[in-house]
């Protein structure tokens, strides 16, 4: 998988769009969109067998999951994660509201999948999505009583890191419910994330790892102990797989944002897309930039070449910044339907389109 990715997928509020790069490295739509008109909340291009998965959040008819084994030419519906029926179900018994993230599981077991949902729960499939099982050990942690919504009414699980050295070691992040680790494929969990800091709770709980709002986690595939976190209150980096974090301050133009992408080979390099602050989720001064550190977070550069320099109000959601397996090619999509790519590690960007529906996720395939 060392080649540049020439296929890019964008999950949007009104369909799944596929783009391809030509020899001149300009991107263009490859065929009509799938699921046109339907909200696509998450997607996975599975590197193990090439299968595509697309999660829908139908306004009337609930959460659905579709699978393609031919690169998106045809799709079939498979089971979607769902909560077990509760006996004499109380009126507030739970249903899956949205699939927020899909991740490949064990590298040696194609078809082993993880899904994170709203409300915050982790689901596992071992058969390419034919059946799903809620990971009850995480659902039953006592700390869940204090989880709360961040951006949505319910808390949600949006980041799932599978340790490539040992796929039984999982790290997940919940808004707002902190960072959790399992060493036994989900059978038991412990709350981690010492060093994460929030400003939105009483001061004596600022460093309580329980009610943290990590917006997104990303790890370096070649050095997975290095975990980057774009948090509600700033940027954090871990060198011990998320057990502890150090806060990185003084990033220009801002430490606030949603997305983070980690370089696949270089644990010192990561990218972020800053916005003003939580109460004003737009680019600072209307100028869109991508920030990059190449030295483990000591220094950051802000790159704006090819991005709107003024009058820009695009926001990049937490799954809408992606880097390919080379670390050279990046893509990002915005809430106002703009899609940009970079071929030089994020230094210069080129607009692909400004006319897509709001973008939830981009992914290379």
């Amino acid at each position, binding site marked *: 998988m060392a080649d540049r990715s020439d296929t890019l997928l964008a999950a949007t509020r009104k369909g799944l769009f596929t783009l391809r790069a030509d020899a001149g490295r300009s991107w263009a739509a490859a065929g009509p969109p799938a699921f046109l008109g339907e909200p696509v909340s998450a997607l996975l291009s599975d590197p193990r067998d090439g299968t595509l998965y697309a999660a829908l959040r139908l*306004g*009337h008819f609930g959460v659905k999951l579709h699978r393609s084994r031919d690169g998106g030419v045809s799709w079939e519906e498979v089971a979607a994660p769902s909560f077990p029926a509760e006996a004499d*179900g109380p009126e507030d018994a739970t249903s899956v509201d949205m699939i927020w993230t899909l991740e490949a599981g064990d590298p040696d077991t194609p078809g082993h999948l993880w899904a994170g949902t709203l409300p915050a729960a982790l689901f596992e499939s071992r058969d390419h999505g034919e059946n799903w099982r809620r990971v009850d050990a995480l659902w039953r942690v006592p700390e869940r009583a204090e989880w709360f919504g961040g951006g949505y009414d319910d808390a949600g699980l949006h980041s799932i890191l599978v340790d490539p050295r040992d796929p039984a070691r999982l790290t997940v992040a919940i808004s707002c419910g902190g960072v959790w680790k399992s060493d036994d494929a989900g059978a038991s969990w412990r709350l981690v994330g010492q060093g994460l800091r929030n400003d939105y709770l009483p001061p004596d709980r600022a460093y309580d790892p329980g009610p943290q709002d990590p917006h997104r986690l990303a790890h370096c595939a070649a050095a997975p102990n290095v975990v980057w976190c774009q948090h509600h209150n700033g940027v954090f980096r871990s060198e011990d797989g998320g057990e502890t974090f150090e806060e990185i301050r003084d990033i220009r133009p801002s430490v606030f944002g949603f997305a983070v992408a980690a370089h696949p080979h270089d644990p010192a390099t990561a990218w972020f897309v800053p916005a003003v602050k939580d109460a004003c989720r737009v680019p600072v001064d209307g100028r869109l930039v991508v920030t990059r550190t190449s030295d483990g977070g000591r220094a950051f550069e802000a790159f704006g070449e090819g991005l709107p320099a003024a009058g820009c109000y695009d926001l990049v959601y937490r799954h809408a910044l992606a880097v390919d397996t080379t670390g050279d090619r990046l893509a990002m999509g915005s809430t106002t339907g703009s899609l940009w790519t970079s071929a030089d590690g994020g230094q210069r960007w080129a607009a692909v389109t400004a006319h897509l529906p709001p973008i939830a996720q981009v992914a290379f395939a």
Partner: protein
Amino acid sequence: MGQVRFASSLQRHLACPPGPVAGVSVREALDAVFADNPRLRGYVLDDQGRLRRHVNVFVNSRAVADRMRLSDRVRPDDDIHVIQALSGG
């Protein structure tokens, strides 16, 4: 005999031809349809078996009263209409 009919907005997502009304409650009639078309269940009911928030079910011209258990009674010659609410899209 009455029939269970599904809105065209639902047929856009999966095949759901009309089926006979079997049973004495809306729940029984829908369960009979879902037995032959299990994927359809998740489009109409949520994870807990309640009517989805943005789906409505009518017995003839009357909206069902019990959206949780779907205990509204039906007669063999009633028609059941499963439609989308105009909210929630």
